[in-house]
């Protein structure tokens, strides 16, 4: 009895309800909900691309990877579909169309008849599905090269012949082009950005001027990418007369990555403890020696992180390269057929994001282009991921070497 009483009696630490607690709980819930929502959406997006893309990339036979897709140039797809199935399909589709029009015309008056139509349409749909499977089994697909090598084309009596641009072959040149673009532009952006960051963090005197420089660099990162594209087009392609070329793309992309790289590098340099600088200056080092030996190495992890962010910004962009570096189709690889070595820099390349843009907006959509889109998107994701991963690995390695 006594102990019961004691258990029930409220003590100073017993739970009490209050409005604040209610708010606390509900806020947590709302925050959690939106966070998970975003995660779910992002997850769905990746899963969708990965699922549909991997259908193109991975195959069931021996190498398990669609080497052709990854290495070949984009080609026109030649499709031969069996005539009989094609006509049956067409007939069924026309049937559905007429039936659904008739059903609509019935309006609400005759429910029984309308139900009968609905049922019929359903049946026809089933039939179409079956026919489609058959069609997929029996159709013949040829890319350009295969088509040219055919000893005899399938006869027109048996097959309906269609061609689809960009839907055959692979995306080899685009992969190479994107790799070249990203690599080159990051190299340029890192060099310029680090030099600029060194000046800003180590040499410049703090004041109004420095502030406004910082501000304008920061603003630069907010400029829409299409503006960079136009700028690059005007400066590099037209004024400097580099034409649509790798090098014009490099510089345009580098300009885009610069703000991120400068800001992050400067930040990481300023995070180096003052003691390192003072310690080395007090030993009689010149300023540059001090920076070279005692600031840059330790800022390296931060600089590499900034390059990851730069890559993320640069690799995905279509707009800046659209006018400056990218070709919709180019069947030569960059190192093929060069007359002199400098030509390498002055040629346009294909690029994955631009390729996606082209196949999804510049040509009629159909089932064959869709697989191309998703395959390209998936490969693109993988490549950007790989770039980021390699800089992360590099950063970890550097970090380990210089840890404080």
């Amino acid at each position, binding site marked *: 009895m006594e102990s019961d009483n004691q258990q029930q009696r409220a003590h100073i630490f017993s739970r009490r309800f209050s409005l604040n607690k209610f708010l606390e709980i509900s806020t947590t819930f709302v925050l959690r909900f939106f966070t998970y929502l975003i995660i779910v959406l992002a997850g769905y997006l990746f899963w969708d691309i990965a699922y549909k893309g991997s259908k193109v990339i991975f195959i069931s036979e021996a190498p398990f990877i669609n080497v052709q897709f990854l290495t070949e140039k984009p080609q026109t797809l030649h499709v031969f579909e069996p005539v009989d199935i094609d006509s049956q399909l067409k007939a069924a589709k026309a049937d559905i169309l007429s039936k659904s029009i008739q059903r609509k015309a019935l309006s609400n008056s005759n429910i029984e008849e309308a139900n009968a139509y609905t049922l019929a349409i359903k049946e026809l749909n089933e039939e179409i599905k079956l026919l489609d499977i058959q069609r997929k089994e029996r159709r013949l697909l040829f890319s350009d090269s295969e088509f040219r090598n055919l000893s005899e084309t399938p006869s027109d009596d048996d097959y309906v012949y269609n061609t689809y641009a960009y839907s055959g072959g692979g995306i080899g040149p685009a992969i190479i082009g994107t790799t070249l673009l990203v690599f080159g532009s990051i190299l340029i952006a890192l060099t310029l950005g680090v030099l600029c960051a060194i000046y800003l963090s180590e040499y410049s005197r703090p004041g109004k001027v420095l502030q406004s420089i910082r501000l304008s660099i920061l603003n630069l990162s907010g400029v829409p990418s299409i503006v960079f594209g136009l700028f690059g087009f005007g400066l590099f392609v037209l004024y400097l007369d580099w034409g649509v070329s790798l090098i014009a793309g490099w510089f345009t992309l580098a300009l885009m990555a610069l703000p991120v790289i400068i800001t992050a590098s400067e930040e990481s340099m300023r995070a180096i403890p003052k003691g390192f600088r003072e*310690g080395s200056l007090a030993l009689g080092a010149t300023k540059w020696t001090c920076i070279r030996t005692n600031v840059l190495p330790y800022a390296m992890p931060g600089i590499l992180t900034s390059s990851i962010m730069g890559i993320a910004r640069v690799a995905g962009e279509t707009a800046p390269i659209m006018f400056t570096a990218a070709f919709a189709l180019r069947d030569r690889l960059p190192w093929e057929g060069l007359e002199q070595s400098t030509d390498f820099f002055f040629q346009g390349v294909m690029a994955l994001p631009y390729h996606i843009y082209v196949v999804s907006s510049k040509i009629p959509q159909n089932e064959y282009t869709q697989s191309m889109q998703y395959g390209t998107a998936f490969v693109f994701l993988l490549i950007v991921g790989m770039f980021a991963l390699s800089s992360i690995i590099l950063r970890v390695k550097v970090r380990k070497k210089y840890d404080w």
Partner: protein
Amino acid sequence: MNVNFDIQEKQAQPTKPPKPVIKTKDLDFAYGDSQALFNISMDIFKKEVTAFIGPSGCGKSTLLRCFNRMNDLINSANIKKGTIRISDIDIYNKDVDVIELRKHVGMVFQKSNPFPKSIYENIAYGMRIQGVKKRSELDETVESSLRGAALWDEVKDRLNKSALGLSGGQQQRLCIARTLAVKPKIILMDEPCSALDPVATAKVEELIHKLKKNYTIVVVTHNMQQAARVSDRTAFFYLGRLVEYETTEQIFMNPKNSKTEAYVSGRFG
């Protein structure tokens, strides 16, 4: 029981007149608009330990950093008036190379700041930036500096390990060794023991006492006991002014100024 010394003989030993190496005259120093040092005049003597004491913010570090022009790094800092002469050369003269000055006047900081390199590289750093490449020369100096800083025995087996693995006291002695490696004549120490435990502090103090034979040492400290233990002369600063500068015995046993008296006896404020 044999007591083998003679008092008369000891007293007869002539005391050599000390020789000033750093001569500060009428120094006014300001950070931008706020003046940090007012009219400082003092001579620091060769091969002696001089201690700077005084409450926080009274300008001890500022004066110390004037001696090797570390204040050049601060944009707003400037000397308004007065001169500092080291070995009779005005160190703020235009023809003075700061690099050479800093090689001559080494500095050990309050927070030990070993570079995140190996112990060996930390010591060799000063010579490497001067272009010394010969391995044997580097090895020799590394060993002698570490021995000089009484650290050799503790680290000789792990010279290639990171200096950050050392204890706080060892790190501070490493920084001293690093300074010794560039062979300065004067060593400035800004609160070298502020972050150390008594044992490490004792070791650093022993080291200072030992280094006194070959170097002129200026040490800033908040630890009055430390100033009393290690220094030959003590300067008491207050609000940017030099209040009293005397032999340590005088300052701690019979200070002339009542502020000094209050400060050293802990009755300040």
